[in-house]
């Protein structure tokens, strides 16, 4: 059924037809007609953020915790340019976002009009796709197509730039029979011959390892369930990237922990020493591989990815399977069951013995203290005191992010939201707001650093306005800790501009926003303080004053291989498991 309406009304109707319940935005001159259309209905609820970057991160948190497409509405010019960091973040981490931007009227485009920016030009490189709507006839199709493009294939952000005259123009709206783009059809089903070859290779493995990533999370809960099934069927060890945490339960004995630059010793040495690597939905990022020419030198590699350009991009693989993780995992589980391969049990036992040796190194060990809170201890306690709840964790970027990834154990997918690819400081608080909106009764914690949190601090107002009881758990070491750590390792301890001068009083700051502030600087009262935070049904800023000098270990130094990790000084020294060259570095 078709109806006549204005462009602005079409935008809102299309959102309703897509089942959108929440959008994150900030009004301005070039989107006023859409805000007016929003005013006349109550199906789509608008969340007013305090900065457009916050709108996109909030939509990301909403999308990642719910599996839905996140929607953003911002004005032209500065509204759009402020959204760029969020869009780039969503592109790097493959998060489905539809971002509606206002634009000056079509006849003024190119005239340097007030609040004009070349939004499609600026966002071309930081979106999966973008549109400038120049004719009202195209608007219904583009609105629905954008949701299809954002969510299908490798997910990503899509921008629709809406000139103000198009919002006022009258046209005919009919919901298209299908959202589909007329030609864009990403391949979801894997090539069966390659999957068979992969199963054969896995069956012959003596030292196998699963290396899983965000693609498993993006492929939906059934992909995580299938991964668990396959890992248990095969009995192989499994490690995960930062993005993939939770797809496989962290408490499971087959899980080696996170791999990569700050990954566990056992995960990285398993990657280095394996003979068959099964990459499911990860992309051989440089934080994962370390030195490329020394990356897992003796393995044959299987790579499952929905994006053909990820295969052979950084690392040459033996079997590249283009497809959706859930579809390919389903085929793999079925094939493994039906062929019931005879695995080399003796070799696998030996491989697990090796892994047990590496685990014995206790690479995450740290020196405990009774008078200063160690940041690792703070995360461990936060995990212990929240693990029986429905908890969603977001982070900012830096040392606290790596400690959270190392010490917080995720058992389910979609519970962990962090800026992986772009590494955007200021991500965590708005993302927590989005996650809390999607899960009103859950506990949502932004594990933050005192430097990162100040980048999008203003979103505390959003949390208060919508009564979203997010918890900001700041590991306050008065440093941009990761910058300081690198300056220590690379630049002779010259801590150029990495000290957090003139910090606000975070307790008073929380109160100024109308929230609750808690400070804790003693390990013996930390548990009580954390419980108080959990029990407070309002937004809380928790200023956890931690050891200023703590570094994040283990660590693969830049330009080094997985077997050249540096461990913290509290790790067990059982030197025999690494060669002489590696030992020099440990």
């Amino acid at each position: 059924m078709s109806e006549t309406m204005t462009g602005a009304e079409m935008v809102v109707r299309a959102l309703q037809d897509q089942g959108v319940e929440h959008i994150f935005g900030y009004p301005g001159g070039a989107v006023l007609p859409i805000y007016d259309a929003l005013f006349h209905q109550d199906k789509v609820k608008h969340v007013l953020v305090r900065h457009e970057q916050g709108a996109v991160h909030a939509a990301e948190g909403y999308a990642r915790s719910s599996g839905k497409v996140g929607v953003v509405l911002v004005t032209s010019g500065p509204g759009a340019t402020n959204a760029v960091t969020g869009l780039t973040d969503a592109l790097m981490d493959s998060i489905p976002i539809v971002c509606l931007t206002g634009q000056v009227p079509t006849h003024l485009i190119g005239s340097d009009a007030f609040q004009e920016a070349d939004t499609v030009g600026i966002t071309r490189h930081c979106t999966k796709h973008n549109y400038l709507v120049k004719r009202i006839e195209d608007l219904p199709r583009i609105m629905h197509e954008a949701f299809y493009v954002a969510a299908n294939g490798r997910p990503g952000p899509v921008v629709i730039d809406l000139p103000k005259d198009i919002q006022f123009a009258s046209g005919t709206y009919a919901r298209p029979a299908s959202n589909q783009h007329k030609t864009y059809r990403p391949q979801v089903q894997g090539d069966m011959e390659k999957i068979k070859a992969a199963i054969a290779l896995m069956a012959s493995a003596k030292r196998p390892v699963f290396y899983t990533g965000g693609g498993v999370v993006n492929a939906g809960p059934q992909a995580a369930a299938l991964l668990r099934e396959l890992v248990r069927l095969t009995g192989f060890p499994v490690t995960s990237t930062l993005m993939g945490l939770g797809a496989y339960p962290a408490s499971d004995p087959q899980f080696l922990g996170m791999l990569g630059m700050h990954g566990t010793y056992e995960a990285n040495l398993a990657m280095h020493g394996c003979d068959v690597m099964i990459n499911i939905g990860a992309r051989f990022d440089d934080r994962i591989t370390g030195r490329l020419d020394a990356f897992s030198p003796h393995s044959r590699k299987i790579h499952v990815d929905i994006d053909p350009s990820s295969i052979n991009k950084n690392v040459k693989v033996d079997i590249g399977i283009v497809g959706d993780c859930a579809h390919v995992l389903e085929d793999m589980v079925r094939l493994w069951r039906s062929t019931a391969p005879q695995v080399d049990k003796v070799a696998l036992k030996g491989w697990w013995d090796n892994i047990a040796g590496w685990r014995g190194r206790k690479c995450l060990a740290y020196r405990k203290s009774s008078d200063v809170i160690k940041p690792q201890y703070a995360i461990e306690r936060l995990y212990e005191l929240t693990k029986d709840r429905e908890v969603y964790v977001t982070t900012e970027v830096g040392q606290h992010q790596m400690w959270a990834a190392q010490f917080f154990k995720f058992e389910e997918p979609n519970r962990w939201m962090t800026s992986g690819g772009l590494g955007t400081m200021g991500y965590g608080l708005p993302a927590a707001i989005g996650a809390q909106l999607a899960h009103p009764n859950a506990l949502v914690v932004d594990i933050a650093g005192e430097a990162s949190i100040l980048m999008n601090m203003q979103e505390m107002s959003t949390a208060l306005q919508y009564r979203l009881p997010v918890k900001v758990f700041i590991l306050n070491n008065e440093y941009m800790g990761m910058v300081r750590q690198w300056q220590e390792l690379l630049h002779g301890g010259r801590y150029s501009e990495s000290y957090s001068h003139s910090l606000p009083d975070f307790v008073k700051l929380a109160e100024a926003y109308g929230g609750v502030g808690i400070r804790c600087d003693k390990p013996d009262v930390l548990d009580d303080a954390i419980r108080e935070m959990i029990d407070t049904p309002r937004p809380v800023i928790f200023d956890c004053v931690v050891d200023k000098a703590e570094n994040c270990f283990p660590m693969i130094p830049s330009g080094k291989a997985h077997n050249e990790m540096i461990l913290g000084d509290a790790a067990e020294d059982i030197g025999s498991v690494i060669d002489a060259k590696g030992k020099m570095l440990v």
Partner: protein
Amino acid sequence: MQHVQPPFAGPPMKSHYSDAPAAEPIARHTLAVIVDNEPGVLARIAGLFSGRGYNIESLTVSETEHEKHLSRITIVTTGTAHVIEQIKAQLSRLVPVHRVDDLTVNGDAIERELVLVKVVGKGEARVEAMRLAQAFGARTVDATLSSFIFELTGTSDETERFISLMTACGLTEVARTGIAAIGRGAESM
């Protein structure tokens, strides 16, 4: 700030990133790309090349199927085998791209370029320009008492040779279309 540990004592590290890979042989490939002829599609393709650091030696574009609004873009690029594979994969995943064909891999394709050459001069140079143009099979598309404009279609080698010879005969201006290419035989894209 005394509360910070002493500097790391291990071997020095240079940077946050791994080193550049060793040099590998570079090859020249001609790609045919079928795209939706929508606004910004050329910017999207060209931006992909600049954004990811790929080379463009030649790029031609024109709508080839008007009813379907399809354009054909012919790109000549250079890179290592790995880079060429990446270029094709990156192009393929753009939403408005329908198809990418590597004409170089598929066998030697017909590649042609059109050049327009303006030669100004009198006397012997002018006669020589005319003679060379005839030898190359170039058409004379404009003539005055002191100038010629020649049109030549050929492979890039031929057009290059023609231009360099004309330089000695008073060449003042050159316009080139870039390469259009199509695979040999009955099979079509």
